[in-house]
């Protein structure tokens, strides 16, 4: 152990006295900060109401503090304390306006994640805590609550011949969803635990229908997402509310929305049409976490420049020794070659991590602050997530440095090692995000190459109930953050093991 301490000190001394190494590592951090600052300063957004400039509208926040989309048609009354709402859904239809290929017709089709069903909500305010049991367009019955939680019930679709009964039971903070095909035999769908339901809640029927998404190849590479207005119509009967509920008429709210499209103005307005026992409700919108906004990791745009600089620094830490013959001296001083390599890896990895940490710890808060000042909506994330982005990205930089060092020891020639290191870290990102590579391969590239580690940067997860296209171009990685990080750790470890083996086997 003491020997390792000496070796560590020796490696650090060599590293810091090798011309330009520390300067370059510092420059890498400064570059990331500067490019991030330029990028943030150059992004502006403003909104106007007529001639007057106003603050841009921001999405509502859900109970968990995340930005949400909360738009739907709500037919509701007040329920005090515990109770049960039951209804039979006999039809769920919809329209999609002007879909491809020609964008010239209105197509009668229900959007896959359109919902019609029962809801218990803290109030009619967008973003309020809720639990909703609904039939979806094509994904069967779903019990969702507080935007980020969802469990699936039975699959299938509804029609007059095959209606679906839905029941939502409130007992305190617990809501239990049931479904049935005949109104007699009930199956439990799941239990929801909304975070902030007051004693007195709004209970009733709702219909939502998110935009119809298609994806096209972008002209500069990457992909372009298109969204079209859709509307869904659900037909309910046998509606009952048991418990201390207010009687009388239903209250009607187009929560988070207003009839703005030509379809709603001239063809079918959103709302409720009651005919006897039968309630027909039309509505549009999405109830899900919102991903419309700036993802905070976007300010790390200069990361790849800094990374390439640090790759060169790490490679030189070993290839410079080979070129100048210092390696022979090094190995005489530390005959245990594996230990020498380990000491080098610790020094280079630590330098990479510290440079990365300085870069991210400055760039992320400063960049986000500047962007918000420029009127850009940066999606809010929990502090833990922001810390994970900052520290995780720094750790990725450290690991890539170790990987580059190992490749330097394997190839013993600077240019070859630099090419190899860049080809397995930066190039996969480029191919996955900024080229004409098909998306299937993009996802694989970010799973099975060291570039998978960049997943620690992703601040906004993909929620199962969010509509949209979550591609690598938009900053969505195929692996969860720590899984991607583990892949990079594996590659760095493997490369280091190979380098250690070759160092012992080969003549220095």
């Amino acid at each position, binding site marked *: 152990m003491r020997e390792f301490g000496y070796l560590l000190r020796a490696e650090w001394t060599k590293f810091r006295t090798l011309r330009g190494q520390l300067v370059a590592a510092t420059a890498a951090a400064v570059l990331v900060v500067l490019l991030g600052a330029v990028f943030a300063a150059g992004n502006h957004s403003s909104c106007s109401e007529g001639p007057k400039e106003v603050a841009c509208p921001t999405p509502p926040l859900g109970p968990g503090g995340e930005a949400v989309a909360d738009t739907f048609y709500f037919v509701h009354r007040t329920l005090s304390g515990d109770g049960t709402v039951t209804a039979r859904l006999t039809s769920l239809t919809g329209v999609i306006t002007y879909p491809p290929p020609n964008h010239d017709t209105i197509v009668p089709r229900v959007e896959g994640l359109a919902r019609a069903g029962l809801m218990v909500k803290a109030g009619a305010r967008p973003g309020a805590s809720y639990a909703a049991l609904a039939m979806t367009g094509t994904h069967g019955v779903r019990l969702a609550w507080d935007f980020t939680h969802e469990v699936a019930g039975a699959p299938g679709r509804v029609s007059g011949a095959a209606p679906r009964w839905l029941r939502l039971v409130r007992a305190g903070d617990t809501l239990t969803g049931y479904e049935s095909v005949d109104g007699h035999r009930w199956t439990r769908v799941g239990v929801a635990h909304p975070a902030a339901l007051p004693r007195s809640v709004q209970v009733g029927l709702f219909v939502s229908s998110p935009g119809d998404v298609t994806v096209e190849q972008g002209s500069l590479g990457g992909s372009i997402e298109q969204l079209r207005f859709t509307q869904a119509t659900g037909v309910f009967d046998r509606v009952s509310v048991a418990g201390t509920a207010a009687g009388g008429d239903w209250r009607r709210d187009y929560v988070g929305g207003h009839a703005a499209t030509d379809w709603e103005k001239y063809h079918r307005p959103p709302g409720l049409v009651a005919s006897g026992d039968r309630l027909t409700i039309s509505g549009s919108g999405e109830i899900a976490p919102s991903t419309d906004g700036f993802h905070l990791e976007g300010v790390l745009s200069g990361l790849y420049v800094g990374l390439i600089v640090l790759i060169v620094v790490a490679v030189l830490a070993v290839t410079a020794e080979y070129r100048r013959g210092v390696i022979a001296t090094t190995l005489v001083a530390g005959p245990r070659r594996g230990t020498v390599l380990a000491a080098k890896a610790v020094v280079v990895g630590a330098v990479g991590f510290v440079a990365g940490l300085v870069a991210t710890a400055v760039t992320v808060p400063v960049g986000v602050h500047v962007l918000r000042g420029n009127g850009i909506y940066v999606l809010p994330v929990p502090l833990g997530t922001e810390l994970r982005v900052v520290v995780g990205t720094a750790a990725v930089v450290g690991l890539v440095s170790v990987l580059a060092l190992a490749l330097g020891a394997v190839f013993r020639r600077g240019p070859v090692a630099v090419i190899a290191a860049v080809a397995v870290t*930066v190039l996969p990102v480029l191919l996955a995000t900024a080229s004409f*590579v098909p998306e299937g391969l993009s996802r694989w590239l970010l799973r099975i190459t060291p570039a998978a580690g960049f997943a620690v940067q992703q601040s906004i997860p993909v929620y199962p109930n969010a509509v949209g296209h979550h591609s690598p171009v938009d900053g969505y990685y195929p692996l969860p953050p720590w899984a991607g990080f583990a892949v990079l750790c594996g590659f760095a470890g493997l490369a280091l093991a190979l380098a250690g083996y070759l160092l012992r086997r080969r003549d220095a």
Partner: protein
Amino acid sequence: MRRALHAEWTKLATARGTAWLIFGIVAATAALTAAVDATVRCTALGCDQDPTRLSLTGVQLGQAVVAGLAILAAGGEFGTGMIRTTLLAVPRRTTVLAAKATVVAGLTAAAGTVAVLASLLVARLVLPTAGFTAAHGHPLPSLTAGGTVRAAGGAVLYLVLVALIALATATLVRDSAVATGAVLALLYVPPVAVFLVSDPDWQTWLWRFSPMDTGLAILSTTHLADLPLTGWAGLAVTAGWAVALLLPAAALLAHRDP
């Protein structure tokens, strides 16, 4: 000049690794094309992908090895001190750089041609499995079609320009590892940066300065109107980068102590 050329050719041809790098150019280009084309799937709406561009995707990896070859030719000499001998033998330093550039460009053109042809061949074998067939209205890229010849020739030209950029960078920074990092950063970072900017005007502006994006515009045979520059204008931007780096490289080589 002839003797300088001969000398440069001898040095590069006998340097350890040249043969490997040439093999690497062809292998890397063909391998990436094969991997990408094997994963293309036409959707129900049709094949929106440009088959010619797909057939030459591998150039994006092959260019890194081309840069390695050019850096070996120039930077290697600075590392070993061989440059002093070279300049003693041929005291006109711009002649040395011109000879190096000629030899590297010639070798890259030859290796690049083989790589591009191999890439097209691989694509012709792989693409039909993805639904790119004449029957579907997507004829395979063929050297009898004008667009494909233009793209293939443009790809070779682009690789030669990358070699010149790398040669100039290596002469400027005089360290092969640093030069490699600089060249790869110049090639690979701007295309990623284009997609990190949200403003479309900024995107286009950045794109027009990116040597890789502009240089590879010539690979496209469809959706040409969407590109900010035509293929030849794009190659001119890449050539501009090469000239902008070669001139100071020549000046510094002439006036600096090696």
